């Protein structure tokens, strides 16, 4: 009660209000600086502590001093300059000490020691200031109020530090601010209640209040300047810190090379969108892009060049998609697009087409041109529950399918694809096992002379007699074996057995063995053949290797070298499936080829299909003029036989004469010396 009567009865309320405003602003800024001091580490902690204690000390001191000027004891008052200044120093030094203690590891100890010290500093400042206050009257002190004021300062000081230590997040720490204000205000006014002055008769009247107001304003101004400096320092530092944080955040979420979003950023966005969709948000499409033929670009033109291509890819992708779509680089040459708000297959399909189209275009960089391409997998979301991981799996399946279908295209996910993929994986596993178990058999398709109808030899064909699947066509398993790198194993096994069998045949019969592009480019083909010939004792001129045009297209320098080495052994070379691929006359001139084999697909349509007839005729003439043997494959009818015989194809093979037979039957057949047809 005495506190209130003291406040309202004995104070100039305007000055008290000024003191209060100063106290609140000062506390507001000080608390921010306290927070910064406590959280700062190393040397910067002392700088922050200095700034915070100057700011808080000035606020506390100015609050006290202005309120004192507002105190009207009814007698003449003077101030002791030295003690007044000492009280200000006490406030600053005390708060500083308290702040350092507030950094103690133990939170309770920090609150008690740090907050307590700050409370005591406020008190010490106040009472030292009171000693500087010289009133011309009889001064009495009420010890109860003194004790109460000290208790208030210590308790609120400790609470302020405690709440500050517990503070978390970006909001302003309002509660500690309030506690600090309370510590200052309570101490001052409870302390003032402890102080009474009784006028002594005969001494002068009250203070000259204009002078006091002017002084109060000057002090308030100075204190506000200090507080303002503290505030702007804090704000500048905050700004710098936020900028640095923004920059760090940008670095963490973006790919440094292309500036696109990175895998991390993409994943969190995918999760966010999936979550929103589950909650009834808009649908979206996930598009995964894998560059085709990027590795050769990197290998032949160098990684810095590859990087420049990737940058250009990023730019093209951003132009190909719509404004709202998110493009991310999620791996070396893998990109992803989150197409917002769209699950319409037509819209998304069109977007994917643009992506495939724009990446299929040439890249011209640094005087060099690079041709790559892209395969694209898409999965669409529908309403309801979606799982980000499931979406990624689906889009991977779709992407895999796009690649399987020949790359440079897009493919939508569909549950049957998963089935196909599983089946494919099982097939791969079976094939690996088959290589270990040697489940492959070699069959022989006899080749005959068209005129005499006598055997001239046989083509060795591989059969996979799978324990689980029965007979598997080479058309199915050879491409997979090539991809898995098993084709060399299978190829040498076929070569070995074919040569081994052929040795037992009459001397004039040859054996033809298919060689895959992978084997041809492996660089060991001639060595392998030489070893097999040596081991089996087969005369080199009785062996023919059959190659396809694709092997010649891939890398013609390497192919030429490889074939010339084989030719040097005395082994013959025959070009299989002629007419189906990139058939070019230049191959026939450039490569050492002894025989052309007309693909069965043309022979099939003979003699009715005019186109096929003219192709067969042309190839036969070509062979004659280039002095190469010509074999017609797949002869099934008498008409076909007559046609190829008329056109001058020297040799032929087909079901009309013989089906492929196993090694034992082949040996028997050749021993008897005539085809099943001619025997019949």
């Amino acid at each position: 009660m005495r506190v209130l009567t003291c406040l309202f009865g004995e104070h100039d309320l305007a000055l008290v209000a000024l003191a209060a405003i100063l106290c609140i602003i000062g506390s507001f800024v000080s608390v921010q600086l306290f927070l910064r001091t406590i959280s700062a580490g190393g040397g910067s902690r002392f700088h922050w502590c200095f700034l915070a204690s100057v700011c808080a000390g000035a606020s506390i001191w100015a609050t006290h001093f202005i309120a004192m000027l507002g105190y009207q004891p009814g007698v003449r008052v003077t101030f002791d300059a030295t003690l007044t200044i000492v009280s200000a120093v006490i406030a600053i030094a005390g708060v500083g000490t308290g702040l350092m203690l507030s950094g103690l590891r133990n939170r309770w100890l920090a609150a008690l020691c740090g907050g307590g010290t700050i409370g005591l500093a406020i008190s010490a400042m106040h009472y030292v200031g009171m000693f500087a206050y010289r009133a011309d009257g009889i001064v009495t002190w009420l010890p109860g109020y003194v004790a109460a004021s000290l208790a208030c300062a210590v308790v609120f000081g400790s609470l302020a530090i405690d709440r500050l230590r517990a503070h978390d997040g970006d909001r302003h720490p309002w509660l500690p601010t309030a506690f600090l204000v309370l510590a200052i205000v309570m101490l001052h006014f409870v302390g003032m209640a402890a102080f009474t002055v009784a006028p002594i008769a005969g001494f002068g009247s009250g203070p000259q209040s204009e002078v006091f107001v002017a002084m109060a304003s000057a002090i308030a101004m100075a204190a506000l300047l200090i507080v303002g400096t503290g505030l702007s320092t804090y704000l500048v530092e905050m700004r710098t810190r936020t900028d640095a944080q923004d920059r760090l955040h940008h670095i963490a979420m973006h790919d440094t090379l292309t500036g696109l979003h990175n895998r991390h950023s993409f994943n969190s966005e995918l999760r966010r969108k999936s979550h929103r969709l589950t909650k009834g948000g808009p649908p979206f499409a996930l598009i995964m892009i894998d560059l085709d033929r990027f590795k050769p670009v990197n290998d032949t033109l160098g990684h810095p060049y590859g990087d420049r291509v990737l940058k250009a890819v990023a730019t093209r992708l951003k132009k190909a998609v719509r404004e709202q779509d998110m493009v991310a680089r999620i791996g070396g040459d893998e990109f992803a697009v989150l197409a917002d708000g769209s699950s319409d297959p037509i819209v998304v399909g069109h977007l994917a087409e643009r992506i495939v189209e724009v990446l299929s275009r040439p890249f011209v960089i640094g005087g060099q041109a690079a041709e790559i391409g892209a395969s694209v997998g898409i999965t669409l979301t529908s309403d309801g529950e979606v799982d980000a991981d499931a979406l990624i799996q689906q889009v991977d399946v779709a992407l895999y399918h796009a690649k399987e279908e020949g790359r440079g295209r897009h493919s939508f996910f569909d549950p049957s694809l998963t089935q196909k993929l599983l089946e494919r994986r099982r097939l791969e596993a079976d094939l690996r096992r088959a290589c270990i178990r040697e489940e492959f058999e070699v069959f022989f398709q006899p080749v005959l002379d068209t005129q005499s109808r006598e055997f001239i030899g046989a083509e060795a064909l591989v059969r996979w007699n799978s324990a689980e699947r029965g007979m598997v066509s080479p058309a199915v398993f050879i491409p997979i074996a090539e991809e898995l790198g098993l084709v060399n194993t299978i190829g040498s096994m076929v070569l070995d057995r074919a040569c081994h069998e052929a040795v037992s045949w009459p001397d004039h019969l040859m054996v033809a063995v298919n060689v895959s592009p992978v084997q041809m480019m492996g660089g060991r083909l001639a060595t392998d053949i030489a070893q097999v010939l040596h081991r089996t004792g087969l005369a080199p001129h009785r062996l023919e290797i059959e190659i396809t045009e694709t092997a010649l297209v891939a890398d013609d320098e390497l192919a030429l070298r490889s074939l010339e080495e084989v030719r040097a052994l005395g082994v013959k070379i025959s070009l299989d499936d002629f007419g189906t691929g990139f058939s070019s006359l230049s191959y026939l001139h450039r490569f050492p080829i002894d025989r052309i084999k007309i693909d069965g697909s043309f022979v099939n349509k003979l003699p009715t299909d005019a186109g096929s007839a003219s192709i067969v005729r042309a190839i036969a003439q070509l062979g004659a003029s280039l002095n190469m043997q010509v074999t017609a494959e797949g002869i099934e009818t008498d008409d076909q036989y007559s046609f190829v015989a008329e056109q001058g194809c020297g040799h032929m093979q087909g079901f009309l004469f013989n089906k492929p037979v196993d090694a034992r039957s082949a040996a028997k057949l050749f021993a008897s010396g005539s085809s099943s047809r001619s025997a019949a």
Partner: protein
Amino acid sequence: MTLQRLFYTSRIIDDDEVRGSTIARRIAEASAQRNAECGITGSLAYIDGHFIQVLEGEMYPLEDTFERICNDFRHREMKLIDYQAVPARLFPHWHMACITEQDEGLEGRGSSLSEIRLLSTLNVREALTAMLTLVDEAEAQALAA
């Protein structure tokens, strides 16, 4: 910096012949303005829904220009036929010459235009010479008229 020449073909998205010629001419006009700023010269032919373009200039502006063309969705099936360093420009006076079947003075020259298209995949040098001849002829016709 070396002088480079780039030669490519592509197909227009919209297969209307008359509109195609108009688009080609607009593209040539717009690119001529840009090319003047970065020292690129060349020629654009439009035949049967196909664009055939020659670009010549310093490497960097040339590659930037081509990248911009690669980001254009008004055409498809872009094929880069040739890109190499050359000693001199073929079209030094043209920031982008344009020849189409609709050109005055080139009526009845449709066959030579088609020839350029066929030549472009077989013999770059002859295709370029044929383009140059047509550009010169069109210019001579324009001057005479």
